[in-house]
């Protein structure tokens, strides 16, 4: 399996990929201000041990703990936008794009990979929020379409991890049509009985919410994520009223029927894995731990 590479290297040595942290050694939680060593923070899957705030993380971080031993093959890594409209706002899109590539070490707002999860081959497409707000243009659409194609051809499950401000304005209607393109692909996948899990993370908004993020066989969200179509500011300005507490959070969406479940990051692999075991009627690769139950105990068992 020479085409597999260890992702660990990318995470621990590639500083371009790392989010800013105080001195790079310590992580200060933006919510509760508690400070953790970077090492512990990573071990805790970038979740604050004090207030459980789930920090925004990129595709490669998700790959590192969802794929068995962090081993995976990334595909289409070199794909980049072509700037079809020669778009310019305060700055040409092309220049902004290249600057972002340099700054982030990424080629667009999504990374796609195949590997084993609980011993089962899966395709995971995960978005990078720090690349122009995780916006969806032609590259995101095409890489998702190819991920779907790969799932279809190999008949293996697909997981898409959304984290996006929505469609990318600089590619205008090309961006818009990525919504239709990805949704159409997912319809084919569904018709073929191949499971698709949508994982919604903070934030998932706009055209991403209004396409592939909401179309999972199961929709799973991390706790406390902002999930919506229109951004909260737009809603607030339009209706001229304050928004109710907890509006557009994962918990709000669960209550309103749009999510199957909310899962802490540390439980994602086990719970998504269990769903895939059930959908594909496979024996669980590893026995589910006795300590945790898949469905949190509620008062009326």
């Amino acid at each position: 399996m020479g085409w597999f590479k260890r992702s660990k290297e990318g995470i621990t040595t590639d500083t371009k990929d790392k989010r800013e942290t105080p001195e790079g050694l310590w992580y200060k939680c933006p919510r509760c201000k508690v400070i953790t060593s970077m090492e512990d923070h990573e071990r805790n899957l970038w979740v604050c041990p004090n207030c459980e705030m789930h920090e925004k993380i990129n595709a490669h971080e998700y790959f590192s703990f969802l794929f068995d031993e962090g081993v995976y093959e990334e595909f289409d890594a070199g794909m980049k936008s072509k700037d079809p409209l020669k778009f310019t706002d305060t700055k040409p899109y092309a220049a902004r794009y290249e600057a972002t590539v340099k700054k982030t070490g990424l080629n667009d707002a999504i990374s796609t990979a195949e590997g084993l999860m609980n011993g089962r081959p899966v395709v995971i497409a995960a978005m990078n929020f720090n690349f122009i707000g995780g916006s969806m243009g032609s590259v995101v659409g095409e890489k998702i379409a190819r991920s779907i194609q790969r799932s279809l051809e190999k008949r293996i499950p697909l997981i898409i991890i959304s984290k996006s401000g929505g469609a990318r304005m600089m590619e205008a209607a090309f961006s818009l049509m990525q919504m239709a393109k990805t949704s159409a692909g997912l319809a084919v996948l569904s018709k073929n009985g191949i499971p698709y899990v949508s994982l919604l993370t903070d934030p998932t908004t706009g055209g991403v919410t209004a396409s592939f993020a909401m179309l999972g066989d199961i929709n799973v969200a991390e706790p406390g994520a902002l999930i919506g179509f229109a951004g909260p500011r737009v809603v607030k300005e339009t209706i001229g009223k304050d928004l109710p507490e907890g509006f557009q959070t994962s918990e709000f969406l669960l209550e309103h029927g749009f999510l199957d479940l909310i899962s802490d990051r540390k439980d994602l692999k086990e719970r998504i894995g269990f769903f895939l075991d059930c959908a594909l009627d496979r024996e669980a690769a590893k026995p589910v731990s006795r300590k945790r139950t898949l469905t949190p105990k509620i008062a009326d068992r």
Partner: protein
Amino acid sequence: MENHDFELPVKELVEQLDKARALQQETGGDMGKSIKELERTLQKVRKELYSKLSPWQRVQLSRHPQRPYSLAYIQAITNGQWLELHGDRGVKDDKAMIGGWGKIDGQSVMLIGHQKGINTKMRQYRNFGMPNPEGYRKALRLMKMAERFNRPVVTFIDTPGAFPGIEAEERGQGEAIARNLFEMSILRVPILCFILGEGASGGALGIGVGDKVYMLENTWYSVISPESCSSILWRSWNYKEQAAEALKLTPQDMLKNKLIDEIVEEPLGGAHTDPEESFRRVKDVIVKALPKLQALDPDRRVEERIKKFAQMGVVAE
């Protein structure tokens, strides 16, 4: 343990037995003989009492506050190997209807059921087991998911009825139930349905169209509850016993009229007297029934399901 009036003889004996056992422990004296005696009497009284329950008494047992509800069955049958899923992808997550994937002896099954609350707070939370349209739509969404992945469906029915509310009507309670009957008739995977407690009308049938429909021994299933029937036809709430009798709502009557397929016996005195045993019996039925149904071709299975329901009804001409 709470008891209904008609269960008083049993209650007294249980109390005596408890006392005798406590005394034996305390004093170390040998009460063995009288304990055995009491146990025998209790068994005899129970057998007699529960073998000739009136329909109304069975209705009361079906509502016994200690009776295990759907989630308890699911937890036990799957041994905790179960992932609850939520939401109708429309308006709400209905707490009166639960569902999700579970493993029964290694086999994946979609489990769906009404859910009543176990105490005052939870009864409110579960809306007394009365789903809104979104509950039926959640159930249907999960059934379609099971169909997509070719896995069987097991439903647990225990409801005093679909919720009669303004919003429920606005959102199409009738449409939601109707859609389920339509879709369940032609769902291409096996469906087993268990009446665990109350099977009240369309609210029950909304997840009740299956290849095999079972009623537990102390349950009822009909077009209306005896109380409501009494109030409508007798114009008084006081004729619920007669109504229960007239409706032929017990498992025996339902089986005799070929409106269900089988009765699952409960532990003596009702499911709540030995929940673990009740769970085991229901699990046994599932484990035995599924392979037979799965061996059938899907077209044939659907055809037989439709035929079964098509034969229900009695006419003269």
